């Protein structure tokens, strides 16, 4: 089986949104959509599942809070409980207000950084990664929808020409 794909190229985001809806209605599988900027509502039109990044961030934040608490408890209370300026180092709760700024910052630090790293890993982004642009114009002013070809190629091309595409290309993918 050949792996041919269609590149339908648009130059307006409203036309793209309509085309995505029509394509979904016609039950053609959209492989990917490339846009130069975020198009509001595109993920909903494509039927993508909502992101779970926020849930990750919440869990990372809890990890950070635990780490901050453990760190201050071990260093200031368990390991070497000195009297520093009369601060009560008898138990964690006695001296807790002094540790809150650190607990807070650790929470934010863990939540923010681990979430960003998760984002990079899930979206496969790293330095020296080879760019996956199907058409260089999609970073500037064109929108591209990639659809796998199954069945009649001619019908598919005329379908996408009917959706307002400025260009429809059939490409052999490797």
């Amino acid at each position, binding site marked *: 089986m050949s792996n041919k794909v269609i590149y339908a190229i648009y130059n307006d985001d409203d036309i793209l949104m309509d085309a995505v809806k029509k394509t979904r209605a016609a039950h053609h599988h959209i492989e990917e959509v490339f846009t130069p900027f975020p198009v509001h509502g595109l993920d909903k039109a494509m039927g993508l599942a909502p992101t779970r990044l*926020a849930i990750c961030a*919440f869990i990372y934040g809890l990890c950070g809070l635990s780490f901050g608490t453990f760190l201050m408890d071990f260093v200031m209370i368990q390991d070497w409980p000195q009297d520093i300026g*009369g601060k009560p180092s008898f138990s964690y709760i006695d001296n807790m*207000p*002094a540790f*809150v700024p650190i607990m807070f910052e650790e929470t934010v630090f863990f939540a923010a950084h681990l979430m960003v790293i998760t984002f990079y890993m899930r979206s496969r982004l790293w330095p020296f990664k080879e760019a996956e642009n199907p058409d260089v114009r999609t970073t500037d002013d064109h929108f591209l929808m990639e659809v796998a070809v199954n069945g009649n190629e001619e019908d598919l091309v005329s379908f996408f020409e009917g959706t307002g595409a400025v260009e429809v290309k059939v490409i052999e993918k490797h």
Partner: protein
Amino acid sequence: MYTFSSKLKTFSFVLMAIGFLGIGYGFLSAPKNIQEVEALLAADSHGGHGSESAHEAASSEHASAEAKHDVKADSEHKEHLEHVFHQLSNKPWSALYVACIFFMLLSLGTLAFYAIQQVAQAGWSPVLFRVMQGITAYLPVGSVIFFIILVLCGLHFNHLFIWLDPEVVKHDELIQTKSGFLNFPFWIVRAAVFLTGWNLYRYFSRKNCLAQDESNDNSFYKKNFNYSAGFLVFFIVTESIMSWDWIMSIDPHWFSTLFGWYVFASFFVSGITMICMVTLYLKSRGYLEHVNTSHVHDLAKFMFGISVFWTYLWFSQFMLIWYANIPEEITYFITRIQVYNLPFFGAVVMNFLFPVLILINTDFKRITWVLVMAGIVILLGHYVDFFNMIMPGTVGGSWFIGVPEIASVLFFLGLFIFVVFSALTKAPLLAKRNPFIEESKHFHY
């Protein structure tokens, strides 16, 4: 147009009646003189009398000094009785004062939120303006009652503000040095100016908003924009001074610089929560056709955000004073931690932990019952917050959330419901010609 449901009206009257009876009971059951307090303390044998028996034990050891000691113990006993007598006779007044200032400031918080929405030209909130105006309709009523209570304080009906008592000031150098600011005429004139200023803005803002409905251009809208900007400047100055006058001066030996902001955060979040609750109620009765879950979601985000802001200020005030531990400042928190432990830390749980964990979820911020639950906890939490600010300075260790406290809250809640929902019937619930009303109707997040 909204019609006040007769059920809710009856409910508000019942609340007021129960509250009124409870307040009356509170005043009647407060001890009239020292003898009553003595009997009360004697009956409560495990209370303050432990120290008395300790005194007796000590004096019997030193037989020679016995007579002397007895005199001393006696005078201490008398002083203690007088102290407790003042606390107990303050109790019904403080209960009334806390509930009264809470509901009045809650509607002031709504007014501040409303003014901010006008000045920020928010595109989402104009469908809620009439709801906010309904809530701020309580402000004139609440102001009058509150002002009367302030005048009664000045006429020595109670000892809520010890600096109003010339006998106390005579022996208190700290208060004497503050008497340039803390004296009755100046204090009551300030109160009158603040209350009048806020009520004037509310009156004209609503009038212009209604006039805008009937007009052909946007001149009334622009007027309101200017009034709102002016009000916000006036508000932040007066709010700060108000918090010194009506809350911080309860403890005239203590001061804190971020107190004004702290009080502001407390009633601001209560006001926003009340907007959310009234909106949800009206929506559930089918009166707010253009309000969708996105509007409610926005209100919930504000409830969440300002709750965190309140906690930030609560902690900043507490931690700075705890860390430095300067005797003249720390007493404020020592009383609260030792005598008001549960309300003091309970307020943080109710106003921070609970809303943060509940309202952090986007989906939850659109579910009515979750918001109603969170809203009730936030409102109760901020009542407790005001309780914590005022009670330790007026009733001290004699505090209890009993009949006078609950009755006062019920009375003002009933009055609040009656005034707010009566006001809502007086104008259509949707502003007609607001320049942002179309955007607001189609607001979607």
